[in-house]
């Protein structure tokens, strides 16, 4: 464990050095994510200029849900972005062999070989939205609440990561599962809205199949007194843990199949 932490730090330092070489790219990347998230906030703001609540949810509450989603997503985006490239940069060109002949966990290597600076953009805007919406939720922000918030954000990021890992693993069988990952990721947009505006089917899928519901709405609901979802919300860390465990086991399975057939 210590060894891996040290190793990650080495990788991280190297990535930062590369990043500093491309300063303009860095700025464009951060700005692009910042604006992508910013316009979705602007969209909600415009809608709320014309109405007061959506299905009983206020503007501030909606913003708070968004904030959790953005912060969780930014963690995944910053540290686990390389999972997207598993198929076309590692398996298809044969670079995964390089990963396999090193005495370090292969998944660790793939993840550590990239730090995606763009994620900082959504982290910044997530914080801004959090700080503007959090005070008006009618909640006393003590140490316990802040701790819980951190747990929830990390869980959210872990679930985003686990879902991506699961579908990236398909690349071991189908060469490049990028289209599948892309389609699945699109469903994460559902999770930014209060779940009870959706029909039963969608709610079921986002809770039990692809647990994106736990990346934003459920964890946010823990902080909203009258949400009626606080019981579901406490499961967030558990769901995160289970998702990561299942995704990792699936990855191991994929790896075994890969070394069995060799692409």
């Amino acid at each position: 464990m210590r060894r891996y932490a040290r190793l990650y730090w080495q990788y991280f330092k190297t990535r930062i050095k590369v990043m500093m070489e491309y300063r303009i790219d860095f700025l464009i990347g951060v700005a692009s994510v910042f604006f992508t998230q910013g316009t979705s906030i602007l969209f909600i703001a415009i809608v709320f200029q014309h109405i007061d609540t959506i299905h009983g949810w206020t503007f501030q509450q909606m913003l708070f849900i968004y904030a959790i989603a953005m912060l969780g997503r930014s963690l995944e985006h910053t540290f686990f972005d390389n999972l997207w490239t598993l198929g076309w940069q590692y398996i298809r060109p044969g670079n995964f062999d390089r990963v396999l002949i090193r005495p370090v966990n292969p998944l660790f290597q793939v993840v550590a070989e990239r730090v995606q600076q763009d994620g900082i953009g959504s982290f910044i805007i997530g914080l801004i939205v959090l700080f503007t919406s959090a005070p008006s939720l009618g909640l006393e922000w003590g140490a316990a609440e802040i701790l819980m918030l951190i747990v929830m954000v990390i869980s959210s990021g872990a679930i985003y990561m686990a879902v991506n890992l699961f579908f990236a693993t398909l690349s071991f069988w189908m060469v490049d599962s990028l289209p599948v990952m892309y389609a699945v990721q699109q469903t994460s947009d559902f999770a930014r809205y209060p779940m009870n505006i959706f029909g039963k089917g969608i709610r079921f899928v986002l809770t039990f199949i692809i647990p994106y519901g736990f990346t934003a709405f459920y964890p946010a609901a823990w902080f909203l007194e009258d949400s009626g979802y606080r019981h579901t919300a406490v499961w967030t860390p558990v769901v995160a843990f289970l998702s990561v465990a299942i995704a990792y086991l699936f990855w191991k399975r994929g790896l075994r199949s890969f070394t069995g057939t060799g692409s």
Partner: protein
Amino acid sequence: MIEVKNLSKHYRLTEKSPGLSGAFKSLFAPKRVTKKAVDDIGFQIESGEMVGYIGANGAGKSTTIKMLCGILTPTTGEILVDGIVPYKERNRNAKNIGAVFGQRSQLFWDIAVRESYDLLKHIYDIPEDEYRKTLQMFTEVLELEPLLGTPVRQLSLGQKMRCELAAAFLHNPGIVYLDEPTIGLDVAVKSRIRQFIKEMNRMRGTTVILTTHDMQDIEEICSRIIIIDAGKVLYDGSLQSIKDRYGDKRVIHFELELEEEFQLPPDLAGKAEWTPGETGTVSVAFSNHVITAADVISEMLRKYRIRDLTISDSKIETIVQDIYCRGI
């Protein structure tokens, strides 16, 4: 050091029939074919040996190397590398091996070479002073100094391969697998790389398994070769003995001024064979146990006007070609 017994690797492939109806058929009743990439091979390699592992494309070389590295699980058979079963303990095996896989980079694409080495130092837990000493030596032998600050993507093929080679030997592995380390390189770089490999073997006793299509590599580096074809070992033995066995063959290529159809001079009949080449050229093959090259030339001179001639000797290349075509 390396023990391989009855090793086989079979792939199950789905054969695709052409056309739409074929696509339908393979959807419901896929036609499975088993391909024997490696078929019951065995050999033993001692510590410090330098072995050329050669064969035509698709003969099963890479599959074998991948199994030795632990990247691929064998269908049947046993592998033991330094007491480790590679595919069962890939991690432990990995600490003791280095590899260069042809044109695929082992280095990190977008960071400077030195940074790559630094990362490798941490990956393989190389002690700092040892790392520094090794890197300094490699820098001198392979002339890496001007390359260390450059990102890999900006290096030329030859520069890259020198850096790759250093990366493979950096953690002082007991075994190094080199899969076509000289492919596409110019003569100067090739010879530098061969020098380096020999040097490593001499100084550190590194076991080297080399696959290549360049027989010069084999001749300069290896004392032993294993020839594999269609997944089976055709020959395993010293380079010298294969030369002794097949090496009496000589071929002389003549460029002649021909006025009529070529005919072998009568004194050469039964002692040599000839094959026509391009217009006006003829290749005469013979064994130097039967007749000397000088005699062949003088016989030819007596009958024809020779514009030019070249003698190809018993290069391993000719021998291996012969074995590929005709078998042992």
